[in-house]
């Protein structure tokens, strides 16, 4: 009985490639944190970008998120993978930034939702300096059509309700498992699934209304 209790108190052993580096960071090795930044900055930037729809803002959010992670890395108790923990920080920072941007836009002009204004164009190299990975095999026309479609999809993602958008991004774009998403948001996996399914149906309806027949 005591043994079972002690096992319950022990954090679950989770395979994490970042564990060793995280331990170094917890011992005060600043440069080890640079390894983690190198390893996760792209995924975190994509999550932030898909949530916000603005490349520059996403970069800013990632900076803030990594800085927040560094400040609280000593509190990281390895109950989840470091990347999962980091996803949570990035999502929170992105949500906060979205609130700020909405308030800022509401002051400038009322009625427009922020992602509509940005239209995701900036994130796809429409003059914002975004460095999208080139698709060598597509023709120029196909690439333009694809970028146009992705911009509209990004616009629709931005129109999703809070609570749906980040789950859809983490699952359908970043490919996290339900368990990881449940760890990020600290909600049951069943809740993750139900929210995800609603998010997908909502996005499908939005894409139908905004893009038309995309199938």
């Amino acid at each position, binding site marked *: 009985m005591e043994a079972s209790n002690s096992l319950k108190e022990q954090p679950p052993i989770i395979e994490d490639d970042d564990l060793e580096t995280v331990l170094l960071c917890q011992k005060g090795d600043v440069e080890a944190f640079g390894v983690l930044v190198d390893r996760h900055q792209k995924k975190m930037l994509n999550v932030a970008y898909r949530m916000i729809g603005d490349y520059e803002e996403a*970069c800013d959010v990632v*900076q803030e998120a990594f800085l927040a992670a560094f400040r609280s890395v000593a509190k990281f108790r390895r109950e989840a993978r470091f990347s999962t923990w980091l996803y949570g920080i990035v999502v929170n920072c992105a949500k906060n930034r979205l609130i700020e941007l909405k308030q800022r836009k509401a002051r400038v002009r009322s009625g427009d939702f922020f992602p509509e204004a940005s239209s995701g164009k900036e994130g796809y190299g429409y003059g914002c300096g975004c460095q999208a990975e080139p698709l060598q095999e597509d023709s120029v026309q196909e690439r333009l059509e694809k970028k146009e479609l992705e911009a509209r999809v990004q616009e629709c993602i931005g129109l999703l309700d809070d609570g749906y958008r980040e789950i859809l991004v983490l699952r359908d774009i970043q490919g996290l498992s339900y368990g990881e998403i449940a760890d990020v948001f600290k909600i049951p996996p069943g809740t993750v699934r139900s929210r995800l399914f609603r998010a997908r149906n909502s996005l499908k309806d939005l894409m139908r209304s905004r893009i038309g027949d995309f199938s």
Partner: protein
Amino acid sequence: MTCRDIEDSLPAYLEGLLSPEESARVRDHLASCPQCRKAIADLERMGTILSGLEEVTPPPWLKQRIMTRVRDEAQPEKGFFRRLFSPLHLKIPLSTAALLILSVLAFQVYRTQETQFHRDGDLHVALPKPALERSMGTQGPHRKDHSRAAIPPAPAVGPSVPRGTTPPSAAKSAKSPQPGLVQPTHQSALRLEQASPPRPDGEGMRDSGKHLSGEEDAAKPRKGAVALAPLPLETLESVGSRKAEEPPVFAAPRPSLSGALSPPMARKKSGDGENTSDSAVTDSGLRGKSASTAEIISLLRQFDASRIERRTSGGMEILTAELPPRQVQALLQRLTGLGITGRAVSIGTADSRAGMVPVRIEVPANR
């Protein structure tokens, strides 16, 4: 099941999360409903689009910026002593140094001002300490020697320092502006004194005046006696008769009746040959010259005056004498009682050796 219910179940159906019964029901519906078939096709296409969304690449500066900020955050934890002595923390020593510099400057300015202060007040510093400053209240500093040599050109009325350079002691001591023989303001005395300029050779009144050796004792006035007001003009007889009838109007007893006489009374008395104690007066011309002057001389003797001298200048009788400091106050009160006030009376500074206070009294020669 309606199409809406089927559409809600489509994501779970695509992921294979429905039970076999629910999956069979959805499959049957899809077979007969083109709208729901379109919906599930859109979902599949959307999934493909989402998973195929182009990834954005972080800019090269992103990691540098992150690590710069991270290092800045980590910096305070590393170098505690470095923080203490870093240039950013120099503001405390700098402020202290600035305070010290200001203090030194302020002290230097104060010293400079103090030197100037003393320089302006050199005359006062060189002067002996006023003997009667406390007892007189309105008296200023006095010279040790009441001779003319120590008195400025207009000793009875003029300031000892040039106008416009008022010494600080004068500013501090209310209404005691001049050193030397400081006298209360009295216009007539001023006018008369100006009419009899001091001797340029510095010799005092003792040389030109009459030296009176008034050593004989007279009835000493009670110390601290105060004459409330000058006596009214009365004749000696009336005073004598009144004295026999009424108590004296003085608050304090007087050394003698003559001391209480008003100037007219003194004149009348002097004319009657009252001046009988002039044997000690070195100046024979004094005798019988002025009854009032003789009365004052008598008064001076009563107050233990010594070196009584007398001279006439510009229609003024000038009497000088030396008094024990304890008698000065009483003498002044008596003189006030005789109507001799203001600039007519000058009190000098006590001689530090003999402890005597020079007194100078001016009265009109026809008094």
